[in-house]
């Protein structure tokens, strides 16, 4: 078995989830049907909704099931923009952190290119953090024209946790809705929707041991959203489409498990992460950690995230060499895999382009062990030396 250190891309489905999904796939009925089979399916959906709401500090009616994190983010950003702008055409400005996932960024770019939106990018500091003062200043440029503020709860590449509660409070001073992409945060740090003050929050199943193809947009009852998909009017008319009962049931098991085991899980991940970071930075290649980092910390950085920068080499070569040595990881977001561009997150953090190229993201999850970390540390030196040689050779030949 290869060593899997890419849990932020997707993680193994929990056995209890597989069991629940398989059991429900054998079930009959469309949750919108009125007969007994339909009502049984509906009961599973509503119980799952209650479980998820309870785990996330939300009300059941605030849980809107989607096909995943991307759809939840799209619904939040595009749906809010369209509705807020329709209600008041002057509201066409989006305040978005520069380090968002592409599910948010690409929506913003689409709205700018095709639907008359303007964007104020919220800059981050060297650790990838948005200063609440930055948000305040951006809003106060012209509070009335802001359609939405969107800042992720925790970053997918470097694991930086954002001050979402402070940002939500600032947005609310001006009655501006606040969306947060909590896809990476749920299951690693405490996420309480009600307490956070967010109006909208996206999460996905497959990052927490749930199935692929299912996610949630937590949306306050007063969140004004134009749907993306029209049709049967399911999910408060916000998201049409036959409810995927088996996936929803599996998601509830995963969320409940992730939140129920949060503290022990976070401590376990952090201890593995610290061992990994210590081993890598002490290996003698000038390897550094991106984002906020402190041994034992589980609040400012996701406990399962280690993001390393290796000088004088290409992350893609490292990835290839580590993969050949049986270690699976990533240079950043899986969604951008194969695109040989430096990460927008690192660039926003002020990392010089040359350094941003040597990025390696190692993310831990519920199946991770000490042995995984040791295997990575054992494979690292040879991979770094070869990648650096290749880098020097290509630079040499280029001159």
């Amino acid at each position, binding site marked *: 078995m*290869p060593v899997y250190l*890419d849990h932020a*891309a*997707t993680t*193994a*489905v929990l056995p209890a989830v*597989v069991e629940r*999904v*398989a059991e429900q*796939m*054998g079930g*009959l*009925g*469309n949750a*919108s*049907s*009125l*007969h*007994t*089979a*339909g009502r049984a399916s509906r009961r599973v959906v509503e119980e799952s909704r209650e479980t998820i709401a309870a785990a996330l500090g939300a009300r059941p009616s605030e849980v809107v099931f*989607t*096909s*995943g*994190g*991307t*759809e939840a983010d*799209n619904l939040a950003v*595009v749906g809010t923009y369209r509705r807020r702008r329709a209600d008041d055409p002057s509201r066409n400005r989006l305040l978005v952190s520069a380090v968002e996932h*592409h*599910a948010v960024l*690409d929506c913003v*770019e689409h709205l700018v290119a095709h639907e008359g939106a303007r964007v104020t990018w919220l800059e981050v500091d060297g650790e990838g953090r948005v200063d609440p003062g930055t948000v305040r200043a951006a809003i106060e440029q012209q509070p009335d024209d802001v359609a939405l503020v969107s800042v992720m709860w925790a970053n997918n590449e470097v694991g930086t946790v954002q001050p979402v509660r402070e940002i939500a409070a600032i947005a609310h001073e001006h009655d501006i809705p606040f969306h947060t992409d909590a896809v990476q945060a749920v299951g690693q740090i405490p996420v309480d929707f009600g307490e956070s003050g967010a109006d909208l929050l996206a999460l996905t199943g*497959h990052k927490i041991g749930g*199935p*692929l*193809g*299912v996610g949630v947009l937590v949306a306050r009852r007063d969140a004004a959203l134009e749907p*993306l*998909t*029209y*049709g*049967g*009017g*399911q999910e408060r008319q916000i998201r*049409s*489409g*036959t*409810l*995927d009962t*088996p*996936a929803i049931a599996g998601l509830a098991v995963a969320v409940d498990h992730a939140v129920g085991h949060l503290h022990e899980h976070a401590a376990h991940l952090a201890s593995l992460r610290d061992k990994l970071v210590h081993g890598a930075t002490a290996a003698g290649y000038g390897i550094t950690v991106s984002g906020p980092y402190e041994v034992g910390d589980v609040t400012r950085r996701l406990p399962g995230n280690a993001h390393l920068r290796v000088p004088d080499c290409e992350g893609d070569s490292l990835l290839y060499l580590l*993969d050949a040595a049986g270690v*699976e990881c*990533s240079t950043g*977001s*899986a*969604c951008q*895999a*194969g695109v040989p561009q430096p990460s927008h997150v690192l660039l926003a953090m002020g990392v010089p382009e040359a350094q941003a190229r040597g990025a390696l993201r190692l993310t831990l999850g519920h199946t991770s062990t000490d042995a995984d970390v040791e295997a990575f540390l054992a494979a690292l030196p040879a991979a770094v030396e070869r990648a650096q040689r290749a880098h020097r050779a290509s630079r040499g030949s280029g001159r």
Partner: protein
Amino acid sequence: MTYLDHAATSPPRREVLEAVLPYLTRDFGNASSQHDLGASAHAALEDARARVAARLGARASEVVFTSGGTEADNTAVKGIALAAPRGRHVIVSAVEHPAVLESAAFLERIGYDVTHLPVDHDGLVHVEALRAELRPDTTLVSVQYANNEVGTVQPVAELAAVAQELGVPFHTDAVQAAGWLDLGVDALGVRAMSLSGHKLGAPKGVGVLYVRRRTPIEPLLHGGGQERGLRSGTSDVASAVGFATALDLVDLARSEPVAAQRDSLIAEVLDRVSGARLTGHPDRRLPGHASFVFDGVSGESVLLRLQERGTLCSSGSACAAGSDEPSPVLLAMGYDPALAQTAVRLTFDERTPAADLDAVAGQIADAVGAVRKLAAG
């Protein structure tokens, strides 16, 4: 219990569940990841795509996995119209599924002209009606392959040919037709086609949008750029494999015997239940689909009595279940609202025990009789 609501959702096949399971457990990778686990997920996804394409007579690059039929319809209708190669006029039939009708309504709200093609009393769209409505600025025609409430099968190939004469993209919602009718996209002449997994023996939460190459289309979801940029979001490999497996298991040879069962069921209901009328076309209809209205009863009360007798069916679309409104499909077919509210739809497949089907006409006769007696009482 007799489940006669396959048009709402049809149970996944055992072989499908077996095919899906490894992708929920061992092969859980993200198909966009570059390492081996990602590559293996990617290979499974592309294999599923190729298998679906083969069944449609399409290229793999023309097959887009979605979260279901509703998303496929929304992407097709809004996406092709918004790409607007020709103008801002859209034609849909009056009996489309809400996923198409509501997408068209969205377009209308943002300034498009929408024409609803009328249907005849059997629910059929006529080629001449389409021809009369096509305009130089028509940018999309969307007519379903078969209707979900009354089972009428539309002359899609003829309609698509008329649209094609003017170079207008033609989309068909084939959610109900899939599994029963030939889905060859070349013979149908369609530019886009929507399919849903859970109506053809695959799991819920997965669908397919076929889009012929060089058809301009705007994506509905933005993000990681999966599915050639047309549908962002981490690929649900297990569901894609389930969809391909279910489609591969479809044997159109089942259509004939199931249609024969349907015809005897219809004959028996019309014979035994006074005031019963078949809705939809008598011949051009889905094999496993029988739908009726009954003079002088309320649809919901018949459904309840059938359920007491162990038979689960519906009045029409599950999506509209619980609504007091008469079916827009039946209204478009010219039924008066009171009669339209008595609709009962029985949908089944070859897995439905023959004995159960045989018992249904008697149960309906009893149920309708009891409701009438109560009303007269």
